[in-house]
């Protein structure tokens, strides 16, 4: 699966994109966050403020309960501030 980060999440994680094979225990966004948090200190630090993090699956807004699969593009970002 493809994982994208934007804004300060990208800075905290230290990259804008990573591709991983979906671990068997990951079914939902919530599971994925838990997996990522365990993958590095940077990830753990980035996901500390969960209330300020939005998620999109295949370019559609989703939530932490959304189920995901191997082919999905998942993006994590703070609340948007355009306009």
């Amino acid at each position, binding site marked *: 699966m493809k994982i994208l980060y934007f804004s300060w999440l990208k800075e905290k994680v230290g990259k804008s994109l990573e591709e991983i094979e979906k671990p068997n225990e990951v079914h939902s966004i919530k599971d994925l966050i838990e997996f990522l948090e365990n993958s590095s200190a940077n990830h753990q630090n980035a996901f500390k403020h969960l209330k300020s993090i939005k998620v999109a699956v295949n370019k559609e807004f989703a939530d932490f309960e959304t189920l995901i699969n191997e082919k999905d593009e998942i993006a994590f970002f703070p609340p948007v501030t*355009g306009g």
Partner: protein
Amino acid sequence: MKLPFSLLLQVVKVIVRVQKESFILQNEIDNLKSICKEIPGALVSFVGYVRDFSNNKKISSLTIEHYPGMTEKMLTDISRNATQKWPLLGTLIIHRFGTLNVNDQIVLVAAASLHRKAAFEATEFMMDYLKTSAPFWKSERVNKDNIWVDAKLDDELAKDRWE
């Protein structure tokens, strides 16, 4: 109810552009007018500019990041929703990304209709939704620091009143 994209395209034209370059308001308005299938009696446009102060801090520049693909998709959805809510002849959204200077144009939102009320309301609706659901993030340069702008509760409330 969601109409098929192809059908809507025939009914009301929706223009969405995400670009680095600036835009010339008059050209864009003329273009929007030219794609309307009837002469719009009313065309409302909103232009957003880079402010020089934010929270009493002097800003030297603004950098806008976005999520390519999702941005266009969200802006198109917002435009289509506006065309379903009001009797519009056409809509236009242009949003810039990259580094902009103080006083530069950031965004242009416009709606054309036979009468002004629909055009005014649709423009405000599109702007309110753009603010809260189009994946753009602003970073302000203050002194020598780049500071990510926080989302505002007011913007969320402005959007909610349309629901």
